[in-house]
């Protein structure tokens, strides 16, 4: 059953060295505070799964925490490249990492297969695409009814998934709304899930019946971290800090500047600072 825990304990209880872990959020609701807590606790040899590695995996890869990354878009969305991830892939710095690359359709289908308890996902994909030649996990199956050759990829089954979400009720049910991305599938595909939320409310009695609610028995731990997805955003609470994404491009371009930034903003900091970081991004209305 779900436990409400301080973020430090929620991460320590659920993440371990060598785990296969997904910190998900498709541009929206990225669990940055949870990723920073994982950096502070210094885990190693992780297999990091994320459709769009984004800043948090650039940071974890830059800190040498990843043995392998599984992804479909390793860029800084709208800005350019992820420079710490590049340094690892191109130069093996700070360590060599293994790469397992898919398309968005491939990853989305694989998460859904994980949530559905299937061993693999089947879809119409990778036709003529070079990824099928460099990723041995991209295979094909023939439809037994029509003879059409379809792509097959293994289901994603993380040891643990971290997501950020809008809110929980007092029983620990969790609401996700806006760009819901892959949040539901990533939670249901994982052995255990940890959710950071903006706030806890008494109950969800006034919610629309079809909103995405994850029942409390699908979640291991909830931590209340206002602003916990910054510089990503939380629909209804604060906007994406696009200026911070632009600034990251310069910070990550230099190994020393990156280390100094991590020391100041992660290692010597805590989850408590996130509320202050989004103050200027909250809507005036």
């Amino acid at each position: 059953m779900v436990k409400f825990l301080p973020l430090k304990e929620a991460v320590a209880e659920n993440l371990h060295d060598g785990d296969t872990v997904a910190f998900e959020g498709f541009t929206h609701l990225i669990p940055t505070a949870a990723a920073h807590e994982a950096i502070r606790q210094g885990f190693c040899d992780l297999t990091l799964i994320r459709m769009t590695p984004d800043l948090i995996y650039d940071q974890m890869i830059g800190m040498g925490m990843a043995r392998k990354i599984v992804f479909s878009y390793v860029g800084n969305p709208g800005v350019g490249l992820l420079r710490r991830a590049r340094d690892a892939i191109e130069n093996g710095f700070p360590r060599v990492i293994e790469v397992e690359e898919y398309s968005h359709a491939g990853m989305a289908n694989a998460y859904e297969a994980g949530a559905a308890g299937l061993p693999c996902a089947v879809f119409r994909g990778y036709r003529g695409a070079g990824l099928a030649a460099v990723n041995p996990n991209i295979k094909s199956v023939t439809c037994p009814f029509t003879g059409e050759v379809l792509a097959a990829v293994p289901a994603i089954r993380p040891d643990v998934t971290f997501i950020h979400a809008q809110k929980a009720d007092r029983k620990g049910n969790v609401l996700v709304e806006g760009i819901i991305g892959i949040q539901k599938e990533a939670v249901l595909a994982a052995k255990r899930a940890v959710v950071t939320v903006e706030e806890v409310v008494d109950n969800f009695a006034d919610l629309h019946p079809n909103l995405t609610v994850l029942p409390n028995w699908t979640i291991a731990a909830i931590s209340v971290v206002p602003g916990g997805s910054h510089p990503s955003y939380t629909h209804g609470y604060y906007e994406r800090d696009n200026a911070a994404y632009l600034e990251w491009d310069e910070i990550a371009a230099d190994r020393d500047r990156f280390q100094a930034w991590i020391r100041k903003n992660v290692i010597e900091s805590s989850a408590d600072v996130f509320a202050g970081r989004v103050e200027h991004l909250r809507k005036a209305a």
Partner: protein
Amino acid sequence: MSDADNLGFTSNEMMTIAASRALKSEDVCFVGIGAPSAACNVARLTHAPDITLIYESGTIGTAPDVLPLSIGDGELCETAVTTVAVPEMFRYWLQGGRISIGFLGAAQLDKFGNINTTVIGDYAHPKTRLPGGGGAPEIATSSRQVYITMAQSKRGMVEKIDFFTSFGHGDGGDHRKRLGIDTAGPTLLITDLAIWKPDPATKEFTVVSLHPGATREQVQETCGWVVKFAEALDETPAPTELELKTLRDLQARTKAAHQGTAKGRAA
């Protein structure tokens, strides 16, 4: 080229506006970020007000006031007809055959409309690791047609791409059909100098229209393959006042918003 003083517009503005003209109100367009996003929104704000713009974050029928920096900016969801989960986006809407135009940019492009956004150099030991495909590999094969827009350069338009991120016409001819791909693939390329269409038989991109002020020599000098020109070469109509104003206003609002001056820090 790009001589705004002589022509009253830049070559990049011409590219975006020429690309916007290719879209119609009845199109359902899967929008790539960057140049395609600008073109799609100019179309929506001028001659194609009913166009359905779809971003891979699951936002369907979106109408943003500023260009999103990412494919998942909040305004895309706030202004959308509906927002669906990412698996549904790719399964029901793209794979289901409901997208009429997939609009893509490219880091590297060859003459058959094959796109590389994955690596420069060898995949296992890349000289430059680029972001990769994201949604593009399936957008390129499941959309009924693909439009491509990019600024010309010898580095970008090459004889041989380093990696097949998204399949265009492969080696040309009926290569798509031979792989079991039943969609049309790239049917239009809009650069900062010209409009290109594939030859009906070979599928090699051929220049059909030069933008005002652009020359055949410029097109060849900024392209890595030997360029074919149509026998009857058109001149692309210059941007209208409305098109230019719409694009410039959109870009000014966008710049202010992303620097955090308009909506962010001052709010």
